[in-house]
């Protein structure tokens, strides 16, 4: 009996419990509005359904948010991810659009490599500004957020580059073993980042730098190098997201690709339980946060909420998520339960009373 209760307490006190509850509630609300919302069919060998859409559409956000998690863990922030995604997408699409055979795999691979390379350079730029010169991250990345958009538009000369490339399109809308390819990529990158941070010491070192940079330096960690690295990783993630977003619609719009994705990404990270001040980060939480945000967007469309009021709807859900997630909030609505306590080793019972 008590073990059951303890187990329940263990589950409900898990960081991800409440965001997941809200996520499920949103899905249930959708299902009530339209029962077929939850159904998943197999069409032409592809999984098809709103749930699949949600996961597929959240793939780019998951990617960006993963990189953002690492940046935030070091106590920084990266506002330039949207612009970097736009630049990477624009570079790739521009290259493809200039080739005679857009459907050749080689062309697409070269394009992706080019876009990726440019993104890495941009990430390194951010890293140098923050880690090398010591500019506050929000300003350092704001520079690229503004200029990067201009760069993306410069590449496309303000036009939308439309391409017609089968292999490139796969990145956004292709399928692998019935699963949308975007989901596969997001999953792969998530696993990669998780392995890279949690199976090596990188994660702990990042958390250490974010928790106390000076102490980390004195412990022999090359704090600056780590800080530099996370901005590069963030840009790399943003680049992949950029490919996905442009491949999704087979066109690169320097202005629209990844617009405001930085805010969504930060929100996802924060919902996932990572503090903006840096320190501990939770990749699983980030993924749940991203899914939650996309579900929210999709719900607006699926439940046909009037666009005029959709923002109010979003505000309410975000508030609910953060309130319900806050231990301080729940504590007010729960009676005190005695926490399990490991008794300390007993002290000799001698109690001398001394006259005052």
């Amino acid at each position, binding site marked *: 009996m008590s073990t059951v209760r303890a187990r329940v307490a263990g589950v409900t006190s898990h960081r991800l419990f409440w965001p997941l509850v809200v996520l499920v509630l949103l899905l249930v609300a959708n299902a009530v509005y339209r029962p077929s919302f939850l159904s998943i069919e197999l069409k032409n060998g592809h999984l098809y359904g709103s749930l699949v859409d949600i996961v597929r559409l959240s793939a780019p956000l998951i990617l960006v948010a993963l990189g953002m998690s690492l940046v935030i863990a070091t106590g920084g922030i990266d506002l330039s991810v949207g612009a970097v995604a736009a630049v990477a997408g624009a570079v790739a699409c521009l290259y493809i659009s200039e080739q005679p055979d857009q459907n050749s795999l080689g062309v697409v691979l070269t394009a992706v490599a080019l876009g990726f390379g440019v993104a890495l350079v941009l990430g390194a730029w951010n890293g140098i500004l923050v880690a090398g010169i010591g500019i506050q991250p929000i*300003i350092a990345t704001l520079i690229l957020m503004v200029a990067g958009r201009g*760069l993306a538009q*410069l590449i496309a000369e303000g036009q939308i580059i439309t391409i017609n490339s089968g292999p490139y399109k796969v990145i956004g809308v292709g399928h692998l073993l019935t699963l949308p390819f975007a989901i596969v990529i997001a999953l792969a990158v998530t696993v990669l980042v998780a392995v890279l941070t949690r199976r090596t010491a990188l994660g702990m070192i990042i958390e250490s730098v974010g928790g106390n940079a000076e102490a980390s330096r004195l412990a022999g960690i090359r704090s600056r190098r780590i800080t530099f690295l996370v901005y590069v990783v963030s840009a790399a993630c943003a680049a992949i997201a950029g490919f996905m977003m442009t491949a999704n619609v087979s066109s690169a719009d320097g202005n629209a690709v990844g617009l405001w994705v930085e805010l969504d990404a930060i*929100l996802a990270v*924060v919902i996932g339980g990572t503090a903006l001040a840096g320190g501990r980060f939770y990749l699983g939480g980030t993924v749940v946060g991203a899914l939650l945000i996309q579900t929210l967007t999709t719900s607006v469309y699926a439940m046909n909420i009037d666009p005029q*009021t959709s923002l109010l709807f979003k*505000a*309410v859900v975000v508030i609910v998520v953060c309130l319900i997630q806050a231990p301080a909030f729940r504590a007010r609505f729960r009676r005190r339960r005695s926490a399990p306590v490991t008794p300390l080793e007993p002290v000799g019972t001698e109690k001398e009373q001394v006259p005052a």
Partner: protein
Amino acid sequence: MTTTPLAARPGRAWWRVPPRHVPVLATAALLLVMYAIGVSQYRAFSNIQVVFNVFIDNGFLLVVAVGMTFVILTGGIDLSVGSVVAMTAMVSASLLGDGLHPALVLVIALLLGPALGFAMGCVIHFFDIQPFIVTLAGMFFARGVCTWISTTSIPITDGFWTSAAQHRIHLGENFVSVGALIAVAVVAVAAAVLAYTRLGRNVYAIGGNQQSALLMGLPVGRTKIAVYTISGLCSAIGGILLSFYTLSGAPLIAVGMELDVIAAVVIGGTLLTGGSGYVFGTLLGVLVLSIIQTLITFDGTLNSWWTKIVIGGLLFVFILLQRLVGIRTK
């Protein structure tokens, strides 16, 4: 032996600038350099009116940035400002359209922002939720109210508003607007509050180390709620100024303004982690952003994307120099 001074420091000459003022002074100096470049490059840049226009055109930005300075000084952040500005303008416009008395409209509009700020502050403090997420929800909410009121812009024809908007206060050959004066007044009041009141000093204390501030017996909760309320108030004033400025309320106005505001505050030398910075620095930050914009307009040859790249570039050069000057003098 007991007279050995503990960690005695070499005497400091009176003319030496305290190190913590260096960033602000560096910013001011760089600003002057930029202005000089503008004057030497562009015709009509040297008109004093150009300077006044900076204040006329950025009055609301300045006021909002002042509010943001309070928040950032405590180590928090307020993403809702742009939306609150829009909401205030929208509510004013629609109430005026309904024929309400302007004084009443003014009161309602000026209460709305602080009320939202107060609510956000309470959530942040009592439930210990990160400001980013709370104010982001506030941002959605206020913007939602805007589109909920109307999806089209609402013109203001009220007499009081139009006269406030179009009244010019002449200073010699040049003029400033009522809004600009209000903005400057807000800056002065805010600077005084930060420097000379307990509230102001507590703001710095919380930014320095919230835990310590708590242990030192300072009213941490009250102060935190206060700064978000102040930011809400400043946004509301900013919204009123904007409605003077444009004589309308539009649901999509001031989108993304929070970033400009945060940028201005940080460029002005305030640390995003809190505890260090000045309202005067924020003023400089707003001026920097504005002068970059002015330089580009005066140039008038950049196309759209080069505009963005040049803004980013100028920002970079400025921040870099600011940083280098700061280091050298340290």
